[in-house]
């Protein structure tokens, strides 16, 4: 990727004219103080995400990408640097940007309806019921309204968690390897579902994964992170329109480019 393209991608001005910046980080550094040595997890991260963009943060396990996401969502204060969302500095979690954990984030003591309605305590009863019904339909959990999470499969729990997140109508979603616990067939289905939902309700999405294919299939841009202490190695713009053909040359080129970037051969 040329230098010009990289900078343009970071400014989000290459396609669709001018787009507003949704999230910006500046000089983000994270150091965990342990009993003995300090662990430098993130090193000087500068990142910009545009409104309505789908950005994947890609890197090997344990490299710190989840930490980056948690800081962006306001759960962890960074050691140095700052995160701005909509021009405001981030100080803590906020319902306008919901974090989706792996399916273990659903509350096991609430039914499907209870979970989806969890964040809707400010609405009237009628509004709440309407919203819940809408999102149950959107994620395809009809018939399971009164079921408890332990009665659902992994894929269904994941969809429940996404529905719960969407129900409060956030601007941004943070997804931390949400499909990691699912089998690969379910994963493919879930990716398609996520894209369908994203196209229906254009949220800004930051999605963390260690799966290269997943990143190239889903994202507008892929932020490739190095191993710990994590720095941004490269940002790759995926300029293929959805639905993406995963056997097309462009797809394979982009994918292989990232493979090489991470230093992997593509022969098993």
């Amino acid at each position, binding site marked *: 990727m040329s230098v010009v393209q990289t900078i343009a991608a970071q400014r989000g001005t290459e396609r669709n004219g001018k787009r507003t910046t949704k999230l910006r980080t500046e000089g983000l550094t994270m150091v965990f103080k342990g009993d003995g040595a300090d662990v430098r997890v993130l090193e000087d991260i500068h990142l910009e995400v545009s409104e309505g963009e789908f950005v994947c943060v890609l890197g090997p396990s344990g490299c710190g990408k989840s930490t980056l996401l948690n800081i962006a969502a306001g759960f962890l204060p960074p050691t140095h640097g700052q995160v701005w969302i909509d021009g405001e500095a981030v100080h803590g979690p906020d319902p306008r940007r919901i974090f989706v954990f792996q399916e273990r*984030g659903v509350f096991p*003591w*609430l039914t499907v309806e209870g979970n989806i309605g969890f964040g809707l*305590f400010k609405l009237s009863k009628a509004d709440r019921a309407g919203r819940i019904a809408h999102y149950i339909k959107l994620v395809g959990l009809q018939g399971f309204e009164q079921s*408890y999470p332990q009665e659902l499969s992994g894929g269904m729990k994941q969809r429940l968690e996404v529905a719960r997140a969407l129900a*409060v109508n956030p601007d941004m979603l943070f997804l931390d390897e949400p499909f990691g616990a699912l089998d690969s067939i379910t994963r493919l289905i879930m990716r398609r579902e996520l894209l369908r939902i994203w196209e229906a309700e254009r949220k800004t999405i930051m999605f963390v994964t260690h799966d290269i294919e997943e990143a190239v299939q889903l994202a507008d841009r892929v932020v490739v992170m190095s191993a710990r202490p994590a720095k941004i190695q490269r940002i790759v713009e995926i300029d293929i329109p959805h639905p993406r053909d995963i056997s097309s040359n462009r797809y394979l080129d982009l994918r292989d480019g990232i493979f090489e970037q991470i230093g992997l051969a593509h022969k098993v």
Partner: protein
Amino acid sequence: MNFPIRLRPVFFVVVLLALWDVAARRQSSHILPGPLAVLAGIAELAQRGLLLKYIVASLFRVTWGFAMATVLAIPTGLALGSHRRVEMALNPMIQIFRPISPLAWIPISILWFGVGDLAAIFLIFLASFLPLTVTAINAVKSIEQIYLRAGRNFGLDQVQLLYRVLYPAVAPQLIIGLRITLGIAWLVVVAAEMIAVNSGLGFLIVDARNAGNRYDLVVAGMVMIGVIGLLLDIGMRSLERIRSMRWGYSED
């Protein structure tokens, strides 16, 4: 032997009872009663109105001591579990107090409350307080961080977080702790009654022996203690079966 499966435990008990009966008959001194004598003893107590009276007395003390301990210990434990430094401060003292048998507190309890109900209730309270506190502390510590983060993410303030996330998340573990501690309280009330008061099932055991070597009543008392203890346990276990709690119990 091709016995229907459900009856086998019953059969086992019957065998034990038969062995007991034989052993009782064959003893030279004829002090210890056989099962039939015990049944007769229970009937006698029921007839004299003592059975109900003593059961109620024991249950009364357990209920009061246990309830007070629950009301104080659970919030304390939840608070301690949430604040690391306070827990650090109090933990060594908890660990030192824990192994002290509640019965070792009897002299002090009699000193403060005299001989009677209050002393016994105090002992039950002591016996229940620390285990419940420790249960609550462990329950809070084992909450998945994710639930609390999700709660904060959806904009819950501290109070809402407490009763919409923290409390439902710890409830299953608390119930198990309550059941186990109730078992301990039941053990202690019997012991406390043997030493410090003059009614109740524990007292029955000591009194029946002291006032005439009525070992049939002694064993009758033991049987009643076992039965009521078991009923209390079964009652608590039924709480674990509430559907919205079942997620917290992987298997039993």
